[in-house]
């Protein structure tokens, strides 16, 4: 062995090849099988993709680095299930490019956040967390009152559709209008939104000001959607407890 290595050390391309081989095995064995997707990810039949407004909110969540303090992955541990709700399933994040499972909980997990608080609570909390939770160490986000930039939404939906997220061509075409419509339940455009996305996504003005579409609208819409894209995890928990 030592002799072999003695010779290997004299040939740089030999070393290079050996390093590549040694460092590839693990990745191939662990990652490749995950793409036999049927076994890894049980796709919930009722999984819905995010609406354009929610997707814009997700973009803000990413932009502001909320994932640095919040996870979105309830582990299958008793205390987490008691604290947050049913544990997360692989299928839930199947449309998430990228996943936002997170790695640190400076703040609580948000995977089951949808409907936990009112929109007004979220708006007040985001603008100044200490107004709602005096001991909070979460940063304030006063600039989220800015108007939402919807210019990239159609292209975003198109890109996600190419990656396999089920956005129909008419959803892509109407993305900007639908973002606005979701926050204006009384407008004519709301009809079209309902036709494309159904009754399940929330349809209301999230920041209590329907005249203007703000970043707050988008972010709160996204926060309220967390854990509501499918009912599958809740089903499993009730099955288990019976």
């Amino acid at each position, binding site marked *: 062995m030592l002799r072999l290595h003695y010779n290997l050390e004299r040939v740089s391309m030999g070393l290079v090849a050996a390093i590549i081989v040694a460092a590839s095995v*693990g990745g191939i064995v*662990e990652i490749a099988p995950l793409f036999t997707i049927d076994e890894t990810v049980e796709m919930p039949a009722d999984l819905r993709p995010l609406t354009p407004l929610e997707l814009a909110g997700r973009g803000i969540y990413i932009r502001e680095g909320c994932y640095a303090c919040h996870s979105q992955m309830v582990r299958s541990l008793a205390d987490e299930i008691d604290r947050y709700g049913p544990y997360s399933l*692989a299928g839930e994040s199947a449309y998430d*490019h990228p996943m936002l499972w997170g790695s640190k909980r400076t703040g609580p997990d948000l995977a089951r956040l949808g409907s936990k608080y009112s929109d007004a609570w979220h708006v007040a909390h985001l603008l100044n967390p200490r107004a709602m939770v005096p001991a909070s160490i979460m940063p304030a986000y006063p600039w989220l009152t800015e108007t939402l930039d919807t210019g990239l939404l159609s292209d*975003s939906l198109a890109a996600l559709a190419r990656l*396999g*997220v089920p956005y129909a061509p008419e959803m892509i075409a109407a993305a900007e209008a639908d973002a606005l419509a979701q926050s204006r339940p009384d407008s004519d455009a709301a009809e079209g939104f309902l036709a494309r996305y159904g009754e399940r996504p929330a349809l209301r003005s999230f920041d209590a000001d329907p005249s203007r579409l703000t970043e707050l609208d988008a972010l709160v819409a996204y926060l309220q959607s967390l854990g509501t894209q499918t009912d599958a995890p809740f089903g499993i928990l009730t099955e288990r407890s019976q």
Partner: protein
Amino acid sequence: MTATLTYSERRVGLALSVLLTLLGFAMAAAARQGVMSVHGFMALALGLGLAVRLGGALYDPPPPRERMQRYDDAPTRFGIAMTLVWAIIGMAAGVWVAALLYWPEATPPWPATSFGRLRPVHTTGIIFGFGGNALIATSFHVLQRSARARLADSVSPWVVLLGYNLFCAWAVTGYLMGSTQSKEYAEAAWYADLWLVVIWITYFALYLRTLARRAEPHIYVANWYYLAFILVVAMLHIVNNLALPVRLTTAESFPVWSGVQDAMVQWWYGHNAVAFFLTAGFLGMLYYFLPVRSGRPIWSYRLSIVSFWGITFFYIWVGSHHLHYTALPYWAQTLGMTFSIMLLVPSWASAGNAIATLNGAWHKVRDDATLRFMFVAAVFYGLSTFEGSFLAIRPVNSLSHYTDWTIGHVHSGTLGWVAMIVFGAIYTLVPQVSGRVDMASPRAVEWHFWLAVTGTLVYVIAMWNAGITQGLMWRTYDANGALSYSFLQSVQAMAPYYLLRTIGGAMFLAGAAICAWNCRATMRAAQGEARDRPLVAQPAE
């Protein structure tokens, strides 16, 4: 920079600078607004600056003929300077965000200074800015000395260093403006990722071309590690960053991976960034500078072979230990845990090999702060790899994951091991490439050492306490079977630890600032070039 280049090299450099200017112009023009246009202007400014500098010096006297019989140390000096610049930027950002967790009201009302945007500035600034520049700069030094050959050409080292720093600057300014892929340690925008691939290929080619000219038949062990660093980081970077841009004229993109596959790819990348960026390359540094500084050969050659291949093979498997109890399939978690534990063997073999090398030179360790930096680095390497294997055990991880224990673990590795070995290397290298025997102020090195060690200990111990407290508070039930603590109570319990952590970090930063000042003073008082010379170049392969 220009003085060591020949006429034709200056012309090549000028051409490349013009290309960079054009690239920057094209980016800015195509994007018209937003992050990508700012980045275009940054590239344009760098390209113009370089073009002016090279153009102005085009017909200056050429370097002396015997240039080829000297090592090319100018890029190393520049790389060290950038290492220290990034150390200050990255550590200052770290101390600041640490302070924000204790004192959140201090956040100014501007988006760019928000915690979530500054945190990746800290991680990128440290890992890529500080660590990456240190790796590239020392690798040029080590490669030339251990191969006894001058770098294969004089332009590509500058391409690598300048291009790499442009990548870092793009990444960090992008986060401030709100552009991020959100993948930890891979947040930079898609075009920056592509740019890094080009730079990395240049780096790899330079490495191999220089090795091909070596005058020593054997490739020294330090180079195996640097090679593994270059190769595997390329593989990780490309696979993890595969993304579909929303438009070719914006920074926004979506990773091609989603959900559980994305999580696995991300942590395969994330943990191997630790392995091949923050470990392999720095082990290369250790294997060169420790023997040089202590004047003793590596204790066991055989052990270094075993640990090299052990690390290269085992590390790649362990990323899934970041995903215990999640939606990742159980078998993948188990593999990650198993290999994490096996990894302790080559890790401790390396640490042990380093410490055993010092056997017989303990008096030097006592008297020489530089060698002490390296000794402490080896000790922390041993400690944090043990801790890492321990935290990868599934039940332990159920307590530690998501808590500040992880942060403590990372910093025992980055402060205690990575930064310490960098400082040890810098204090060995800077006098040498300045043609001096010692640093400008040896006493400042001593001060730096004690600030660094105390800062690390304060930081790490505070975070251990914080993490274990958090983990226990989250899982404690009362007699009625209800959870005992609200999440907020666990947040409040962190305050003293977050304060201590800030103090520890500030001490470490102060030490780094002393180091930067000392290195500047040393380089300014340079007494010529490094005195060692390569053997006359002759092809060995």
